[in-house]
């Protein structure tokens, strides 16, 4: 089964006209577009059952609670969690990482310990550890990369020495690289370390099963998977989450507050302080329902085909003038193409493409250590999702040439 041909019609934004051209949206790694069903689900919530959750005995409050908690169940199933209690709602993947670092790290890390990350991590999986390490004095270590942008695991044993947490991305948001999470997780577990997976670029595009991945904790974000802004997820094994101290304090996360202290609530509520992003949780539930209706395996197939098509088209047309960072084989990577084209600076390239309604991202993609390694300040990144098709790629390919002329040195 492939995806419906007219799938773009379900995304209102994709019919927008920008600078006289129907929009060509190739920036889904930064944020995806939203199907009407997701926008409508949030509308419906606000129009019919909007009320604060968990604490209200009246009808619409009960319905809001029910809608929120059934979203939690749907999301839990979607990622192969054992129970909805394993799904903690945050505001974005970044908060999820801060929760892990502060709560688990604060309890378990000290001088002499190490946390192992990789050279291709997003700042969300770097800075929270750096903040904590400045306080607690543990070491942050980095798995290096091979020249084609894969993890270089030749020294993994040495790197793992003294490591208590391995925290790595399942897929690079710059290189498209898919990492061997399971293999690394197995080796981490052998020495008693835990594994946190950054699935921000993975859950939106792949059938995901937390047990298959071998993760102990996993972070992802709603707005990259057809969901709204303002919602992220931390998944963790029940016993592990149970053992972790609270992160943010306030309402919802307590069973009792006395002047001399408080008693934390059970998971997942223990980690959800204050009024939750109720509409956003419901929106993310609708996004998961939408993705399930298409089928994650079909979405992945579609993206492999399109990545293959794009890599061929770019290489055939521009040969040596163009480099695509990361793995060559479209089966071994996601639909994220960081492109170097002649001497055109990414900012200029994306500006020129914008004149044709083509949206790509120019920048460091919140991966500055990786930029340094690549020896660039920024890359031009085109990234795909289920709603892109060959016409989008054709538009991109055609638009490079005039940009190249304009900025020829």
């Amino acid at each position, binding site marked *: 089964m492939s995806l419906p041909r007219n799938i773009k019609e379900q995304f209102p934004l994709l019919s927008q006209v920008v600078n006289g051209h129907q929009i060509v949206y190739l920036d889904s790694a930064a944020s995806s577009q939203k199907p009407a069903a997701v926008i409508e689900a949030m509308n419906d919530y606000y129009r019919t059952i909007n009320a604060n959750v968990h604490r209200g005995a009246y009808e619409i409050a009960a319905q809001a609670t029910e809608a929120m908690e059934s979203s939690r169940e749907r999301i839990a199933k979607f990622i192969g969690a054992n129970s909805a209690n394993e799904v903690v709602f945050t505001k974005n993947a970044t908060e999820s990482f801060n929760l892990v670092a502060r709560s688990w790290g604060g309890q378990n890390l000290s001088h002499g310990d190490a946390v192992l990350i990789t050279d291709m991590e997003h700042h969300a999986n770097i800075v929270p550890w750096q903040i904590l390490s400045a306080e607690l004095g543990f070491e942050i270590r980095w798995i290096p990369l091979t020249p084609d942008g894969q993890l270089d695991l030749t020294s993994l044993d040495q790197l793992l020495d003294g490591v208590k947490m391995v925290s790595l991305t399942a897929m690079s948001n710059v290189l498209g690289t898919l990492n061997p999470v399971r293999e690394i997780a197995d080796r981490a577990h052998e020495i008693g370390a835990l594994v946190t997976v950054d699935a921000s670029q993975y859950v939106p595009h792949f059938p995901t099963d937390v047990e298959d991945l071998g993760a102990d904790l996993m972070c992802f974000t709603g707005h990259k998977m057809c969901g709204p802004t303002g919602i992220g997820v931390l998944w963790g094994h029940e016993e592990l989450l149970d053992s972790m101290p609270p992160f943010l304090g306030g309402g919802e996360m307590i069973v009792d507050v006395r002047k001399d202290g408080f008693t934390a609530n059970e998971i997942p509520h223990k980690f959800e302080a204050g009024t939750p992003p109720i509409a956003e949780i419901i929106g993310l539930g609708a996004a998961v329902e939408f993705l399930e209706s298409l089928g994650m395996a079909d979405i992945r197939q579609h993206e492999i085909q399109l990545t293959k098509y794009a890599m061929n088209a770019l290489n055939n047309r521009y040969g040596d003038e163009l480099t695509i960072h990361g793995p060559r084989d479209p089966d071994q990577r996601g639909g994220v193409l960081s492109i170097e084209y002649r001497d055109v600076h990414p900012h200029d390239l994306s*500006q020129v493409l914008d004149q044709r309604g083509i949206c790509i991202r120019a920048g460091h993609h919140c991966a500055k250590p990786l930029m340094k390694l690549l020896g660039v*300040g920024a890359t031009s990144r085109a990234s795909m999702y289920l709603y892109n098709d060959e016409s989008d790629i054709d538009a991109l390919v055609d638009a490079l040439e005039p940009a190249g002329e304009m900025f020829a040195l």
Partner: protein
Amino acid sequence: MPGLDDLYKEIILDHYRNPRNQGELDSPPAHRTEGFNPLCGDEVTVTFEISDNSLSEVRIAGHGCSISQASASMMSAAVKGKSIDEVREVTRRFKAMMSIHEEEIGSEASEQTSDEVFELGDLEALKGVVKFPVRIKCATLSWNALLTGLGELEG
């Protein structure tokens, strides 16, 4: 929607292709200051020498988009040999032009002090950048770095 021609004027592309005053002066004795654009990763290093209260030498290094490179090159040409006060004045004017409300500010200011020295000249070509707010930081990157460098001297 303004077109690309408003942004990429020929003179800008010329400065981009043939940047003036490229390189780095040894520091010390030269002063050195850096600027980052966290949005796009652009970096600029400005080194300069002061003698007799003037910017006797200036060099630009770093990497960035055509706008940040051209603006740095144009800046180097505009400030080289000027007195510190003059440098500050041209910077003030340039930044006023780059602020979203440039029209008003720009015209007011030029009525108050209509000294020839302070005409922006070639720099006027960068005026179109204001229509592309995301790029304003590209154009002002080197100017802000220079200002920081001058500030450090004094303080």
